[in-house]
C-alpha cells in the first residue's frame, strides 16, 4: 500500500464523520478488551510469561546474526531455499521471480503484515499472478479494494451489515442469508476451489524457530494449512526479528499471542512447517522458499527503538488505544496502525513522512500495560517526538508557543505576574458567566468543551495574601 501518513489529519476528519466505522470499532474493540481481560486474569503465570517473553526477544535480538544463521542452516537442511532481502523492492523481486519460474497463474495468500509491508500485491501483479486472499477479513477487503485497518483483524473497519452487501454484490453465488454464519459459508464456497487450484501459496510466519528451521503460523480459519500445503510452491516472507531460539521459547509466545490478540487461550490452528514434501509424504509443496526481510530492522538494533523489535504483532495495543478506537486504522495511512504502528512507521519510512503519528497520542500508557512483551510504547513515542524536535520538524506555532511559555516558566516572578493577569483577563472575558465558550487562541479547547471561569486570583496571589503565607514568611 502507498503510505499516506502525511495526510493523517485529512484521514481523521473523514473517519470522525463515518458512523458505520464508529459502530464497527466500538463493537470489536469492546469485545476484544473484555475477552483479553478475562483470559489474562485466568492465566496465573501471565506476568512471568510476559517478562520471560521480553527477555527471550531481547536475548535473540542481541545475538540476532547467530540465530538467523542457525535458522538458515536448519531450514536449508530441511529443504528450504532461504533468500535474504534488504529492502521491500528486493523482496518483491525475489517473490516475483519464484512465481515466474514456477509458471504460476494464481497464488493463494495467508494474511501477513510483512507481506503488506513489502507490497506482495504489487509483486504478484508484476509477475502476472492472480492474488487470492484467503483470510476471511483479507478476502473482504480484497473485494472492497480496501487496505487493511488492523494487523490481526484487517477488516475491523467494516460492519457485518456492510460485508453482507459486499458479498451480495461480489460473490459468484449470493450468500444464503445475511446472518454471520451464512456470510462465512459464502466466503468458504467462494474460496474452496481456488485453494485447491492455486499454483503458489504465500504465507508469513509468526515465528521462525532457529534450532529446527521451522516456521510457525497461527490462525483461526485453517486457511494457512490450505494455502501452504496443496500448491506446488510455498513462499514464506518474514521479518528477520521473527526468529526465536527454540521450541520451548515458542510455547511461551504462543500462550501470550492468542490471549493478547483475540482473548483466547489458543487459536484453532498452530502449525509448524518444516520443509517441502518429502518422499512418502501425502502432500506438501515441491518447492519451499523463505524470504527473510530486513527493511530497516537492523537500523533499529542498538537504538532506543530496539524494543519495538520484540513485537509479536498481536494488535492488543491498538485494541486498547483510545485514538485508534476513535479514528480506526486507515487514518494512520500506513501498513501498521495504532500505537505500534506509530513507532514503526517513522522507523520504516521517515520522521517527516509520519510526523503526526507519534504526536497523535495521549500517552495514557494503556498500550504498554496490555503489551504481551512489555514494549514501552509511550516512552518510544515520546522519544520520537524528541527526535522530531531535534530535527526541527515541530510546527512554528508549537515552537513559538513553547518558547514563550518556557521563557516565563523559568522566571517564576514574571510567570506569577502574567498568570495573575491572565486569570483576571479570563474573568473579564467570561463577561459575568460561569463558563467560557468562545476564545481567541483557544479554539482547540472551546470548539468542543467549555472552559471554566477561573477563581478570583491565581493560587499564588490568593496564597500570598493568606495568613499561612504571612506565618511562613516569619
Amino acid at each position, binding site marked *: 500500500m502507498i503510505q499516506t501518513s502525511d495526510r493523517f489529519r485529512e484521514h*481523521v*476528519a473523514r473517519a*470522525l464523520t463515518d458512523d458505520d466505522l464508529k459502530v464497527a470499532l466500538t463493537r470489536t474493540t469492546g469485545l476484544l478488551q473484555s475477552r483479553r481481560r478475562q483470559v489474562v486474569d485466568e492465566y496465573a503465570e501471565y506476568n512471568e510469561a510476559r517478562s520471560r517473553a521480553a527477555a527471550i526477544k531481547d536475548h535473540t535480538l542481541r545475538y540476532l546474526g547467530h540465530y538467523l544463521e542457525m535458522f538458515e542452516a536448519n531450514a536449508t537442511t530441511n529443504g528450504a531455499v532461504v533468500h535474504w532481502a534488504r529492502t521491500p523492492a528486493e523482496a518483491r523481486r525475489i517473490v516475483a521471480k519464484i512465481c515466474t519460474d514456477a509458471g504460476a497463474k494464481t497464488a493463494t495468500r495467508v494474511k501477513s503484515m510483512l507481506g503488506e509491508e513489502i507490497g506482495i500485491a504489487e509483486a504478484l501483479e508484476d509477475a502476472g499472478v492472480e492474488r487470492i486472499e484467503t483470510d476471511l477479513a483479507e478476502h473482504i477487503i480484497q473485494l472492497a479494494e480496501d487496505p487493511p485497518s488492523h494487523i490481526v483483524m484487517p477488516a475491523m473497519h467494516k460492519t457485518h451489515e456492510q460485508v453482507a452487501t459486499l458479498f451480495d454484490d461480489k460473490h459468484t453465488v449470493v450468500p444464503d442469508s445475511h446472518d454471520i454464519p451464512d456470510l462465512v459459508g459464502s466466503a468458504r464456497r467462494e474460496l474452496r476451489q481456488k485453494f485447491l487450484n492455486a499454483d503458489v501459496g504465500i504465507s508469513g510466519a509468526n515465528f521462525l524457530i532457529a534450532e529446527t528451521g521451522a516456521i510457525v503460523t497461527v490462525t483461526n480459519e485453517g486457511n494457512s494449512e490450505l494455502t501452504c500445503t496443496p500448491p506446488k510452491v510455498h513462499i514464506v516472507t518474514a521479518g528477520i526479528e521473527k526468529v526465536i531460539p527454540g521450541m520451548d521459547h515458542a510455547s511461551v509466545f504462543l500462550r501470550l499471542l492468542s490471549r493478547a490478540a483475540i482473548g483466547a487461550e489458543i487459536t484453532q490452528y498452530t502449525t509448524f512447517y518444516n520443509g517441502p514434501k518429502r518422499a512418502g509424504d501425502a502432500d506438501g509443496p515441491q518447492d519451499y522458499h523463505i524470504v527473510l526481510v530486513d527493511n530497516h530492522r537492523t537500523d533499529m538494533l542498538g537504538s532506543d527503538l530496539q524494543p519495538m523489535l520484540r513485537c509479536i504483532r498481536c494488535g492488543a495495543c491498538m485494541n486498547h488505544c*483510545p*485514538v485508534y478506537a*476513535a*479514528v480506526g486504522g486507515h487514518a494512520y495511512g500506513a501498513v501498521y496502525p495504532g500505537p505500534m504502528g506509530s513507532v514503526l512507521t517513522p522507523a520504516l519510512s521517515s520522521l517527516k513522512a509520519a510526523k503526526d503519528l507519534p*504526536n*497523535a*497520542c*495521549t*500517552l*495514557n*500508557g*494503556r498500550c504498554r*500495560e496490555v503489551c504481551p512483551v512489555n514494549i514501552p510504547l509511550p*516512552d518510544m513515542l*515520546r522519544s*520520537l*517526538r*524528541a*527526535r522530531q*524536535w531535534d530535527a526541527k520538524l*515541530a510546527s512554528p506555532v*508549537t515552537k513559538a508557543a*513553547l518558547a514563550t*511559555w*518556557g521563557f*516565563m*516558566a*523559568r522566571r*517564576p516572578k514574571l510567570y*506569577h505576574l502574567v*498568570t495573575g493577569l*491572565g486569570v483576571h483577563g479570563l474573568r473579564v472575558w467570561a463577561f459575568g458567566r*460561569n*463558563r467560557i*465558550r468562545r476564545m481567541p487562541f483557544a*479554539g*482547540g*479547547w472551546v*470548539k*468542543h*468543551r*467549555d*472552559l*471554566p*471561569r*477561573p*477563581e478570583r*486570583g*491565581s*493560587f*499564588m496571589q*490568593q*496564597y*500570598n495574601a493568606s495568613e*499561612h*503565607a504571612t506565618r*511562613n514568611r516569619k
Partner: protein
Amino acid sequence: MNESEIQKPRVGLFVTCLVDAMRPNIGFASLKLLEDAGCDVEVPQAQTCCGQPAFNSGDDATTRAIAMQIIENFEQYDYVVVPSGSCASMIRTHYKDVFVDQPDWIERQSALSAKTWEILSFLSDVMHHQPEGIKFDGVATYHDSCSGLRDLGVHDQPRNMLAGVEGLRLVPLKDNDACCGFGGTFCVKYPDISNAIVADKTQSIKDTQADILLAGDLGCLMNMAGKLSREGSKVKAFHTIEVLAGMAGDGGICGDET
C-alpha cells in the same frame, strides 16, 4: 512527649500550573489535608510548571531547565507533594529521561524523584491519614487518570479514603481506566480526536446516573467537566482532594460559582 516534640515531615507543596491558574481551591484543599495529616507544609514561591508541555513536545532542553528549577527549589524538603498524578509522575518517573550526561544533576534528580508523591497516595501510603468527620451528600463516580494509575499505582487510595466520607456513595464507572482524551497538548493539537474520546467518556459518566464526577488530575477534570458542561449535563466535577478536605461546596469545576 508532647506534640511539638514530634518532628513533623516538611512538605513542599507543588500546586501545578493548572491548579494555580484555574482552580486554586485544589491547592488550598491540599494544604489543609496535608496539615491535618501532620505535615509542616510550605509553598515554595519559585514554582511554575513541572515541564510536561515541553517534555511531551520533545523539547528536552527546556524540560531540563525547568526540571533544574524544580530540583533547586524543592530538594530541601522531606517530601514534594503534588495534587496531580500526571505532574507527580513527570517529576518522579520522567525527569530521569532528560538528564543523561550530568552525574551531579542525575544524583540530585533521583533524590528529588524518590521523594515526590501524588497527594492521595502520599496521604494514604506515607502518612496513613484518613480524614474524619467529612460529610458530602451525593452519588459519585470516579475516573482513574492514566499517569496516576499506571505510573504511580494510584487506585485503591482515593477509593479507600472516599469510603470514609459520610453521605457519599461511589458507583463504578464503565472503562474507568480508559483515557479521557485530555493528553495535555494533545487535546489542543488534535481537538477532534480528543472530542471523540471525551464524548465516549461523558456518555459513560452520564450512564452511571451519578451526580458527582471525581478524579485526581485537574487536566482530565477540566476536559470531562468542560465537555459535560457543553452537553448541558448537571454532573458536578471535583478533585478528590476537595471532597476529602470538605471544600467541595461550590458548583465544581466548570460549574456555577456560588
